[in-house]
Every structure is written in C-alpha cells, then in structure tokens.
C-alpha cells in the first residue's frame, strides 16, 4: 500500500464492509494521524467515520483490533464521545479468553486520557492485575502508572498502589520489573511517601528477579536498587556481590546502572577491606568496554567516566591508554577523552601522556588542538616533575607559529608561571616575539599579565605595555583590567620611568571608560598610589596564593549528587536534575549514603542542647488571664513549614536579599560585586587574578536555593518540652559555591533565635559574613549582627545563634512559605459558643481536611502535647466512640485558625479539619500538627 496524492477519501466510509479494505484504510488514517502531513487533511472527515471505527472493535481479527485501538489512542482526546462508546468494548475485551487481547485492552485503556472514562476502567484493571497470564499482569502494572498520571487520587483510593506492591513478589520477573518501574515513577511525584517500601525482604526479591528478567527490566530494577540505603556494610556487600555479574552484560545501559549501584554502595564499604579493592578492580573493565561502542555511546560513557574518575581515580588509573584519541573519533568524543586523560595523568604515566598530547597539538581540528595545548599546561601544573618537559613542548609548539597554537600556549604558560614562580622566566623573550600575532583577548591578557609580573626583568616592558595602550578602548574588559594592573605593577617596580604611563592608563580607566569594574579598579589603584605607595606595593605586589592543581573540578557536593545520577541526563550535562528538568522533584535530592561509623554531621549538637539551659516562662493560660497570654504568647515560636510547590515561585524569602547577593554576584569577585544590595555574604578571599568572573547564578537556581531554605525546616521551638526541629539544610553547598547553611528556629527565654551552622565545603576560606532579612510576613528581623567574626576555613563549621524580633516591617508574602505561627489560645477569646460561631462564620469552602498518619496517642496526650506547643483545646467531645478535639490557634500576624481533630481509638490515623479565613495557611498548620504530634 502506498500513500499517494490521490487518496480516494470518499470511498473510505462506503467501503467499510470488506475487511481488507477496512484494514488498509485504517492504516491510512493512522499514517495520516501520525504524520500530521499537510498533504492529507483528512481530519474533519475522519470524525465522521469514527463511529464505524468503533464498530470495528467488535471484530475478532486481532490485526484489525490493534489498528482500531491505535486509532482510539490517537483520537480519543479530541473525541471524548467516541471513547465513551468504546468503554464497553474495553470491559468486554478485558475478559477475552485470549491474553493478547486482554493485554491489548488494558494497554489501550491507559492511553486514553479522557477523565470521564477512567472510572469505568478501574474494575477491568483490577482484574487484570490479578490475571493468570504474566503478559497481562505486566501490562496492567504499567497501566497503573498511566492512570496515576491522569488521576493520582483515584489510583490511591482504589488501592492500586498496594496491588502494585504485591506484584513485586510476583513469580514472573518481567512483571516484577514493570511493577518496580511503575512504582518508581509514581513515587517520584510523592517524594515523602515510602511507596516502594524498600526493605531487606523486598530487596532480596528484586535481586532474585534481576537474574531472570530482560535487560530492560534489569535496568529498572538496578535503578531502583540504587535508591536503597543498606543498613550496614554487610548488607551493602551482599547486594554488591549480586549486582557485580551485571557488569559483564552486553547492554551498556545495564552496565552503567550496575556501576551506579556499586559506586553508591562503595561509600559504605570500609576502604581497607579486601572486598572494597576487589570491587574497584572489577569496575574498570566494564567501563573500558563501554568505549568500544558507537560514538554516541562512547560520548555518554565518557561523560560518566569523567565523574567516576573525579570521585575515585583509582578505578581507572591503570587504563589511561584507552582514553588516547583515535584519529577518526568524532570531535565531541576527542574532547572528552582529553579531559579524562588529564585527570588521570600522574607521575607514572606522564611521559606517555605528553607524547600523545604533542601529537594531538599538530592535528587539523582547531578546537581539539587548542584543548590539547591547554592540556599540556594542565599536566605541567598537575605533575611537578613534568613541568620542565611540558614547557619545552610548549616552546616547540610556539615555534610552529601557527596562530591559534601560539595563543593557546601563551595562556597556559601564564598559569605555569603562577604555579612555579621565578622558574621559567628564561622563555619570556621567546614569548615576547609573538606579541604582535596575538589577537584573542585571552592570549593578550595572558601576555600582558606575564609582562607586568616580570616587568623588572623585561627591559622594554614599558614599551610593550604602551603598545597595548593605544587601542585601549577597543580591547575587551578582560584585557583592559589586566593591562591596568600590569601597568600599576610596572610603575611600582620602576617608578622613575613610567609615571607618565601609569597616569595615562589611570585616566583612561577612570575617566573615559563606561565600565564600572574598570573605573572602580582604576580609582582603587589611584587612591592607593596617591595616599600610600608603600601599602600599594604591599597590596599589588603581594605574594599570590598558589593555584590549585585541578582547575575545573566539580564541587564535591555536586559531584556526590551527580554520582547518584550516573547514567542519566544529569551525568551528561554535569548538572543536578533540578537545574534542567522542568517540574523536577527538587525536594528530594539524592545523596550518597554515609558510612555509619563516621556519623558526626548527622545530628546537630545544638538542636537538643539549649533547651535544658533555658529558663522557661512556662505559661499556664487560665481563662481570663488575658494579659499573661498576650505578654508571653505573642512572642510565640516561629514555625517554618515546608512548602513543596514553591520551587517555581521564585519568592523572596526571609533570607532572600542576603542569599540573593550571595548567590548572584558578590561571591564571584571582589570588585565587581553588586553594592546596591548591601548584603555582605562575601567570601572576599578569592584571589583576584583567579577570581571567577561574577557569575550571575541563574534565576531558577537562586529561587530554588531560597526555597530550599525553608522547605525542609519544620522549625518550631517553644517553652519547656517544646519541640525544636533539628537543623535542616537551608542552603545546600551546591547552590552557593560551597557554603552550606543549615539551621532551625528556637525560642529561649521568650526570645526567638535562629540557630545556624555554617559549613565551608569549598576549597577556599570565607570571611565577612552578614545577614539581612527581607521583609516577610511576620516582620521578623535580626536584633544583632551575625556573630561570626573569624574566617571560615575549608571544611570547617561554625555555629551561630541569631536573636530575632518581630518588630520589622510586615509584608504579606506569596507564597506564605515561611510561616511564623504564633499560637495563641482562644481561651480568653471565647467559650465554645464563640468557637462554634466562628466555625460557622467561616465559609465551608475554607475548610480543609488532612490525615495525620501513624500516630499512636490518646486524646489526652494529644491535647497535652499540643498545649505544650501553644495550641489549646477548647472543648473535647465524644461522638460515637470518637474523640473530637476542638482547638484554636492564632498566628502572629493575626490569622485565626480553628481546628477539629478526630481521634478514633485503635486507629492510628487522625483526621484534622482546619478552618481559616486565609485557607492558604492551612497546609502549614497541618504540617506543624504533624510535626508536633510525632515528636
């Protein structure tokens, strides 16, 4: 059959009598639907024939049935009526004796995204989940995931999730694999629920199924295993032992998923054990084998190997040869290989690596040659013994006079000078010969830097620099800044001859330039030079900090996260999934498991500590003691409630301003920061030459960083016995260039404090911390500056406690994700009647119901616990064996919340109904209830 222009459409409906014709026209329709081709605009006509198509469902011909189903899948959305007509057929087909037809029906049902019919499909689906044929069961398992995507609530209510969990124990491995895949996907949208319920028994079942199912099923199972945290090293080891055989699988996706599991569990194994070392040895051959695939597979493999090499270089240190470039590799593979070669370079193999790099530097491809030249420089910096040889290789390359090679060589020689000062100046003369050929800003800046740095040894340094000055305004900012600094250096070294030059450059920089960075730097030098030349000398010519060996390492925390995502897109982009997947479930980040013997970071010493030392104003509110209430309780505890949906809101938070600048500009560089914000979370120690240019953190990252601040902290601190949430990570190091902040809110002596732990996870030390609160819903402001005065060294932590007050300006925030709940009794406000009146007064649509699960307390304990947390019970009733507690609370900003808590003896799940004029806070109140009752 061919599709030509002469589609004899009108005959379509007429000829539906003969089976063969039907078949072919259905092909035609389907092809048309899918190609959406401009040639065949059949759409409107197809509508007319949909009835005929549905009639065809009755056919016994499997081939035709398939086509009809295909048609339905494509057209149901636009023609819901047709889908409804088809429901009966589906139900009937689900009971067909032929398992193929049953499965076909289930599969198609799930793909019809029409709300109205979904409920009719529950019963057939339930039957198919328990079908005797594994092919039907496995299709039904996937169907649950489809249905969950359409209507999550219904899937939960109908108990499909439990059926799915039962399927994990199924005898057919394919069914297990699909059940695992479906559950994994569903649980991604419920980060907190433990849907998969990974426990040693289940893990065991999965491992058994792993050996039997198809390669694709193995991938699902391995990915699921990687989310499991074994409880001790013995368990980790036994899982590793059973996963290791997968490493020799022919499917590279299986191999990589297995590598991911092993990389994660390696964390748990003691480093000196025999098994640990055996495992490391076993990891290397499969990784090498991945490189023999197609270039596409190689590329993805190399990106992953890049991560693995950074995390555990020992795995591949013997295998450097496989990363040598082949002449017919695509360029993207070449570049990746080069990167890995450098990471693996060591004293043992440097000779080999250098010989290779030298070959690469004469290749044809410009990008590759540049990178090869740069790699030679990185070798010199990394392996000190090879520096001499690298430099001579670079000089050879400069001799070729190939423009881009020379320029690239000069850039890396600058770095070599930084690393080994005063060692290779003899080559400066050669470099200067090439001054005229440099046309790229990087190379020009590098050359200028070299001239400025070694001005005292270059006789005509002033002439050289002056020659650059002529076209000062045409240069890029980078060159301008370097030139300015270089001339100032020159002046300080040879003040007599160069006064004119320095004045010229300063006036160019300060008066004629539009660039604030340049102006600022110009003024700084100008003032330094004019007020105190001695200090100027100390500042400008001070000894520079050493540069690190590896210039482009991924931050350790990010690396750890990426290791958890081996094999996924994140590992190809080297970015966390939250950075590029829209609507990602950023809330639950994956972490590498922590070895249990070394837990010291897990629990913060502060969280429990201060409570004991506090003199608690324990207020027992009595009816009418209004004054006491007001005095004491109005300074109630702040509660910060998770706000899951806030990821995209980009809201400015409590710490918004401060973090804004922290993330956005100031961190990047000393001079060019954003003074307008006035926030000073500036680690100012970044060495000026190597300061990363101010990196504007992407807006998304900033806002999610800010929201992270609160989404995890259920901070709440109260009077004696009150609950202080453990510190939660507000600002992960990934988001803030290595600064991690975790904290909680507490209340001591009637004052609120924000307890924070600052941890420096970057490679440089950080100083000058300050904090500012943006306007927030509760007027919260700090009453004293942040008490951190000493610099924060790498991997050091500092505890700080910041007193807070609520007298600041109030601004309603949307979302209300930092909610400071000021609990307040209704006692003085009313008796039951008032409560009831208010309850009725608030419109019903503002009532929200929640379930508090797994709480084993009786009504009195509940009431006591809540009272400790300033939620007072107004009345208690017993209706039909259920305890009803009526409670109220008030937030500091004057919002009243009425609550009805229903407790059924013997049932650990409580029902909480909340009524409030501002229903948006209910969610947080519920979460606070949940937190209080469970602690």
């Amino acid at each position: 059959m061919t599709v030509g222009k002469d589609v004899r459409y009108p005959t379509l409906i007429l000829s539906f009598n003969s089976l063969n014709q039907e078949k072919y026209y259905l092909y035609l329709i389907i092809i048309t639907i899918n190609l959406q081709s401009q040639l065949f605009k059949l759409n409107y006509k197809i509508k007319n024939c949909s009835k005929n198509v549905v009639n065809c469902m009755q056919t016994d011909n499997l081939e035709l049935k398939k086509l009809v189903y295909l048609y339905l899948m494509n057209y149901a959305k636009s023609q819901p009526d047709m889908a409804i007509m088809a429901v009966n057929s589906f139900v009937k087909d689900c009971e067909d004796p032929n398992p193929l037809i049953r499965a076909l029906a289930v599969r198609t049902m799930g793909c019809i995204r029409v709300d109205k019919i979904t409920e009719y499909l529950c019963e057939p689906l339930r039957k198919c989940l328990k079908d005797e044929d594994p092919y039907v069961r496995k299709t039904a398992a996937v169907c649950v995931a489809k249905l969950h995507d359409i209507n999550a609530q219904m899937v939960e209510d109908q108990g499909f999730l439990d059926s799915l969990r039962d399927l994990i124990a199924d005898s057919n491995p394919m069914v297990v694999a699909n059940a695992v895949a479906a559950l994994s996907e569903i649980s991604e949208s419920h980060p907190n629920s433990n849907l998969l319920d990974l426990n040693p028994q289940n893990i065991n079942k999965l491992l058994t199924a792993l050996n039997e199912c198809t390669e694709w099923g193995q991938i699902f199972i391995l990915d699921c295993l990687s989310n499991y945290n074994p409880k001790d090293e013995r368990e980790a080891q036994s899982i590793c032992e059973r996963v290791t055989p997968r490493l020799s699988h022919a499917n590279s996706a299986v191999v990589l998923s297995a590598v991911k599991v092993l990389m994660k569990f390696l964390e748990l194994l003691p480093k000196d054990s025999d098994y640990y070392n055996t495992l490391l040895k076993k990891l290397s051959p499969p990784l090498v084998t991945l490189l023999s695939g197609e270039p596409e597979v190689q590329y993805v493999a190399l990106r992953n190997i890049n991560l693995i090499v950074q995390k555990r270089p020992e795995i591949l240190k013997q295998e450097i040869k496989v990363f040598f470039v082949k002449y017919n590799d695509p360029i993207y593979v070449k570049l990746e290989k080069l990167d890995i070669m450098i990471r693996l370079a060591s004293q043992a193999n440097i000779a080999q690596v250098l010989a290779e790099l030298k070959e690469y530097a004469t290749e044809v491809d410009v990008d590759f040659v540049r990178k090869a030249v740069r790699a030679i420089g990185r070798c010199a910096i990394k392996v000190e013994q090879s520096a001499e040889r690298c430099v001579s290789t670079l000089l050879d390359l400069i001799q070729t006079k190939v423009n881009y090679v020379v320029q690239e060589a000069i850039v890396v020689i600058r770095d070599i000078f930084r690393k080994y000062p005063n060692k290779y100046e003899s080559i400066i003369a050669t470099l200067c010969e090439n001054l005229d050929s440099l046309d790229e800003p990087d190379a020009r800046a590098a050359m200028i830097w070299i001239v400025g740095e070694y001005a005292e040894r270059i006789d005509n340094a002033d002439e050289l620099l002056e020659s650059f000055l002529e076209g000062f305004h045409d240069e890029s900012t980078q060159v301008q800044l370097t030139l300015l600094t270089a001339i100032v250096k020159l002046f300080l070294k040879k003040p007599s001859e160069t006064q004119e030059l320095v004045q010229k450059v300063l006036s160019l920089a300060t008066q004629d330039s539009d660039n604030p960075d340049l102006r600022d730097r110009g003024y700084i030098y100008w003032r330094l030079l004019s007020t105190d030349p001695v200090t100027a000398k100390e500042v400008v010519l001070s000894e520079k900090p050493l540069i690190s060996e590896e210039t482009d390492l991924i931050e350790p925390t990010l690396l750890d996260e990426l290791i958890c995502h081996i094999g996924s897109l994140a590992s190809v982009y080297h970015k966390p999934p939250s950075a590029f997947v829209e609507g990602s479930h950023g809330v639950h980040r994956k972490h590498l498991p922590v070895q249990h013997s070394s837990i010291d970071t897990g629990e913060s010493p502060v969280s429990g500590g201060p409570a004991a030392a506090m003199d608690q104003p324990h207020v027992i509110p009595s009816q009418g003691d209004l004054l006491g209430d007001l005095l004491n309780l109005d300074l109630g505890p702040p509660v910060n409630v998770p706000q899951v949906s806030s990821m995209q809101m980009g809201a400015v938070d409590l710490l918004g301003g401060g973090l804004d600048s922290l993330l956005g500009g100031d961190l990047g560089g000393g001079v060019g920061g954003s003074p307008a914000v006035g926030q000073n979370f500036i680690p100012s120690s970044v060495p000026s030459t190597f300061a990363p240019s101010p990196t504007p953190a992407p807006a998304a990252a900033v806002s999610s960083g800010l929201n992270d601040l609160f989404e995890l902290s259920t901070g709440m601190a109260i009077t004696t016995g009150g609950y202080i949430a453990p510190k939660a990570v507000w600002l992960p190091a990934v988001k803030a260039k290595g600064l991690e902040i975790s904290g909680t809110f507490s209340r001591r002596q009637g004052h609120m404090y924000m307890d924070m732990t600052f941890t420096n996870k970057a490679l440089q030390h950080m100083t000058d911390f300050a904090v500012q609160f943006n306007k927030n819903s509760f007027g919260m402001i700090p009453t004293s500056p942040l008490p951190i005065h000493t610099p924060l060294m790498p991997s050091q932590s500092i505890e700080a406690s910041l007193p807070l007050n609520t007298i600041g300006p109030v601004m309603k925030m949307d979302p209300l994700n930092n909610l400071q709940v000021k609990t307040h009794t209704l006692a003085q406000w009313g008796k039951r009647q008032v409560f009831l009146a208010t309850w009725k007064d608030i419109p019903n649509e503002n009532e929200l119901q929640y379930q508090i699960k797994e709480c084993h307390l009786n009504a009195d304990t509940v009431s006591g616990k809540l009272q400790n947390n300033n939620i007072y019970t107004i009345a208690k009733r017993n209706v039909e064996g259920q305890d009803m507690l009526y409670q109220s609370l008030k937030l500091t900003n004057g919002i009243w919340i009425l609550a009805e808590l229903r407790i059924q003896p013997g049932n650990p799940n409580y029902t909480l109904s909340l009524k409030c004029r501002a229903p948006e806070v209910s969610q947080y109140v519920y979460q606070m209830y949940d937190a209080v009752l469970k602690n």
Partner: protein
Amino acid sequence: GFIVKRELSQKAKLSIYSDLVNVFYEMVTALPGDQPPVVMVTHKDRYFVHVRQGGLFWVATTTADSSPFTIIEFLNRLSALVKDYCGVLNETNITENFALIYELLDEVLDYGYIQTTSSDILKNFIQTEAVSSKQFNLFDLSNVGLFGADTQQSKVAPSTAATRPIQGSREGGKSEIFVDVIERMSVVIGSNGVLMKADVEGEIRVKCYMPNCSEIRIGLNEEFSIGKSQLRGYGAAVRVDECSFHQAVRLDEFDNHRILRLSPSQGELTVMQYLLSDELPSAPPFRLFPTIERDKGGRLIVYLKLRCDLPPNSLFISPCVFNIVVSLSQELSSPDQRAELRPESRAVVWNIPRFAGGTQLSALFKLDIPDLSSASLLEVGPVSLSFELPKLTATGLQIRFLRLSPIQPSQSQRWVRYVTHSDSYTIRV
C-alpha cells in the same frame, strides 16, 4: 536519505507534535559538524537523543531525567529490530512498513517503558506482514559494501541474502544461517616504528533464518582464553582480555570446551563481544617507512614506503583504501599512484585497490607549500590507514564448528565469515 523516525520515550505522550520534527530537523542540520548525541531543546524542555543507523536518524524525545544510555542502546536495538522485520533499512522500506513498525513499537514500548527487544518474543505479538521491497534496487547495490568483493566468489553468499525480513522464511525462503566474526583494529605505531597501542574489538554475530532451529552450538578455538593469567598449553593461545555475551547464550560448555550454546531468535543477534588490548598475537599487518624532507625549491617531499606483513600465502586483500592524512599541503605535483588532495582537511588520500601479503608499495608526493619553514615539518603527520581484511581475524579467533539441532534439512545453508576492519590505524611520522 533523511527521515525522522520518531520514537516515544519516557513521558512523551502518544500525541506527537509535527513541529517537533521540524525543530529536530533544524537542529540537526544547523550543526553540520559532529555534535554530541544528546541535544537539548530549550523550548518545552524536551530533549532529543538521536543516533544514525542506515542513513536514517533515529530520534527519541524525553522530558524527564531519563538515562540517555538506555535510550541510545534502545534506539540501536530498535533499528536492528526494524531491520530484522523489514529487511533493509532505508527510507522507502520504512514508509511502506509503517504500520508494521508502529505495531512493533507498540509492543516494544509501553508508556515509555521498554518491554522487550527480542525479535523472538515479539514474533508472538506481531500480526502485520512486512512489505518487502523489490529484490534488487539501488539500495541493495549500495549495501554491497561489507562483503561486496566476495560476491562473485561462489563460497560466499550474496550480501543481499543476509538482509531480508525474517518473516520471509515463512514463505518458503531458503533456510540459512550466517555466523560472522567481525574485528576492528585500532593501532598506533610511533614514529620510531614501535607499536604504541594495539587494540582489537571483536564480535560474533549470528543471523539466523531458520524457523525450526532450536539450538545452535558454536565451537571456538579450543585454546581460546580470557584474561592474561590463564594461558593454556603451548602458548599459541588465542587470547582476549574481556568478553561479554548476549543473555541468550548459555555458557555451561564454554569453560571446558569453548562451546557457545544458544537458541537463536530469528534475525540478527550479537552473540559475543570481546576485547583484546595492548597486545597482538602477530605483527601489525602494515608498516610504513616515511621520509619527509624539504628540497631546495621549498617543496615538501614525502616519500612513503608501505609494507604488508601478512603471510605471503594469504590471499589478496581487497579492496583496500588507504587514507594518508598529511596535514598542510597546497599542491600535489606528481602523484605516483592514484592519489588525491583534499585541501579542506589538508590531507592527501592515497587509494590502493588491492594489496597482496608480503609485498611493498611506495609513493612519492611533492607538495608546494608557501612559507615553508622547518617548523612546518612538525605539522606533517600522522598517517592513517583504513582497510578491510577478509577471511582474517586479528586475534586468530576461529569458529571450529557450527552445529544445529534438530538436524536441518540438507538444503539449509550455513555461512561462516571473518573480516577485520581498521577502526583507527595510525602511523606517526
């Protein structure tokens, strides 16, 4: 031929947007150079993953953080599967078998979850018959590549025989089985003639068109060994470093007798992959003795002498194409043999159609290069060869026997073929 075969992956719903195809087309054509297979699309946050097979782009789209490995591997499998079912991979064939492919996809993928890619299992579900394209068309001719030179010889099946749809056997086609041992060499020989790196990647591929064959036993050389430690007997072992097998292969007789047992599915199957690194059992097949100098007229003189070190009694090696990439050249004045200059890649390409074992060939190139300096000599080089050696394996791996059970009728044919390709054969000057 350019066709966009759309493929639904994780989360991508069945409703396909035709504009996506255009977006992809634009992205692929906008970047003429090699681009990484993962392409990001900024609008709608959709990601494309594509591979190229049979001159077609195979594209999958995904919105989630799914594994590109899985997708690439899947796309490769899918194209193999389509090839199994439709015969040859080309644009017309795919258009004609659209419904079949759609049906395949439906079974292979469910809601983005890959269910199975085994043609054997799928056979139970697939109803549509393949529409075979004509027996001989231009596309078939273009497929002659791999074993094309052997087509005239009676011992080897025509290459078209191996590229027919698996369903064809139902209609009484010949029952045949092909076992191919394909090896790829990558060799780097330093400028001093020292072998710097030599890797061989190999695979055994089975193409089976025997509907009632339940088990194949493939016997390898008995002295075949894996890993460095377990050298056997007299040291003349056929050795590989790593080995991986398809999961349908049963290895119970492998350890002792080097026999692979498998129940073949119809169509193509990569039974075993292996890798030998850093060590060749024999000397590298080609050696080059280059002389490069400047003559008085400022010309670059490149004299190349190429030796083939294969045993003299080995048959003709054909066809051979030698790519001699000599960077930087402006004019080729006196080509000694069939040679051409490629200014865009700054290379001279020297084509040698046939090259017998144990013989030697030479070529002299004179290149006029403006501003020739002594430094430019540094830029000449490396020489890369690409070739194909039929009936040879670099590792020495052989198929000892091929037994089918139940015993097949006499008209069934079995083919065992060996070939070694150059993956990257570089000689530095």
